[in-house]
C-alpha cells in the first residue's frame, strides 16, 4: 500500500524488481519437471506466425490466434494435425504431448511457415 503512494519513479523501479522476480520464478519452475507449464500463444498477422520458432515444454497448450483480415489455418504434416480455417479473431489450440521439433504451415497459404520446439 505504501508503494502506491510513493513517487512514480520508485514505484516503477519496484515493479521492475517484481517483474525480475517473476521471471526468475518462471525460470526456476521451468527447470522443475513437476511444474505446470504455462500456455503459449502464437499470433497470426499479416501472413506470418509470431513467435516462430516457439519453444515450449511437453504438455503445454499452444493457442494460435488469427489477428489478420484473411482466414488462415495451421497444418503440421508430421503430426497429421490440421486446424479448421480460422477467420479473423478465430483461435485454435493444441496440447503438445511429445518432445520434438515440428514444422507447420498455413493450409491456405503454405508459404507461411512456423515451427514449434517441444522440450521434454
Amino acid at each position: 500500500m505504501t508503494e502506491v503512494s510513493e513517487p512514480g519513479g520508485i514505484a516503477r523501479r519496484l515493479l521492475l524488481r517484481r517483474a525480475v522476480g517473476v521471471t526468475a520464478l518462471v525460470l526456476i519452475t521451468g527447470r522443475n519437471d513437476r511444474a505446470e507449464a504455462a500456455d503459449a500463444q502464437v499470433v497470426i498477422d499479416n501472413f506470418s506466425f509470431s513467435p516462430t520458432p516457439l519453444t515450449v515444454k511437453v504438455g503445454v497448450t499452444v493457442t494460435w490466434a488469427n489477428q489478420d483480415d484473411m482466414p488462415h489455418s495451421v497444418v503440421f504434416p508430421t503430426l497429421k494435425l490440421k486446424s479448421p480455417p480460422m477467420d479473423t479473431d478465430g483461435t485454435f489450440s493444441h496440447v503438445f504431448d511429445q518432445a520434438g521439433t515440428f514444422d507447420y504451415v498455413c493450409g491456405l497459404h503454405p508459404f507461411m511457415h512456423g515451427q514449434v520446439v517441444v522440450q521434454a
Partner: protein
Amino acid sequence: MDIDPNLQRRGFLKCMTWAGTAMVWTVAGGVPRSQIIGTAEAATTDFSFVQISDSHLGFDKAANPDVTGTLRLALDEVDAMKKKPAFMIHTGDITHLSKPAQFDTASQLCGATKLTLHTVPGEHDVLEEDGKSYLNRFGKGSKGDGWYSFNAGGVHFIGLVNVMNLQANGLGSLGNDQLEWLEDDVKNVTASTPIVLFAHVPLWMVYKEWGWGTSDGAQALSYLKKFGSVTVLNGHIHQVMQKVEGSVAFHTARATAFPQPAPGTAKSPGPMVVPAGELKEYLGIANVSLVSSKAPLAIVDTPLAG
C-alpha cells in the same frame, strides 16, 4: 441535395475498376478477346462469354465491407449487356469460408442472370469437408475434385482444379490424376480448335514467393502444344496480368471483392485497402492494354474509362 445520376454512374464505374467487374470474352476467327463490360460491347461476334472471379462472399473487412454488393453490381453489368453472352465462368473463391450461406448467396445472385454458370473452386471454396460442400453444389458432371471440359461456340473449354493440394511453397497443383485426364481429354480435339483453359491459381508462375503459380502447370500446358490457340484464364491474384507465350495467352481477372497488391510490392498478399485519394492514381496503373494486337492470339484488356 440532388445528385447528378451521371456522376453517380461515373463514381460507380470508377469503383468497379478497382473492385473489379466481369470480363466479357468474344471469339472471332479462333481468337478470344476480352474486354470489361460497359466499354464498346463486342456485338460484332456471335459468341461471347463472361468471366468473373474471386467474389469472396462472406469477407467483410476494410478492403471491401460489402462483397455481396460489388458482386451484384458486376452481375448487373452482365444483365445490362445488349447481346447475351453464352454463359458465365467463375474462376474461383466464390466464397470466403466455404460456408453454406455464402454458396447460397452466390448461387442466388449468379442464378438471377439466367446464364449457365461454369465454375472451378478456389482454395477458399474447399475449406469444408475436403471440398465436398463445393462439389455438391457446383461439381455436377465433373470428374475427380471437380475438373471437366465442354464444347461451346467452336471452342473447347477445360476447367481445372489446382487448389486441393497446395504445395509447401504455396503453389497450386493439379496432380497426376488430373494431368492424365487432361492429356486424354484433348487427344481427339483437332489442333485448329481454340482451347480455353480455366483454373483458379495462375497456371503460369506469376510470383513464386506468394505461391502465385502452379507447380505442375507447365506439364498441363505441354499437352496443349498442338493447338494453334490456347487461352488460359485464372483468378486468385485479384488483379489483371497478361502474358503471351507462343500460341498460349495467359490472363488473370480482377476480383469482384477486393484488390491485392502487385507481386512483391507489399510484405504480404493481403487485401489492399485503396484510399479514396489514391484511387485515381491506382486507376491510371490499371488503365493499360498489355498485349500487342500483332500477336497470333491477342487479348485486349480495356478497363473502364471512368
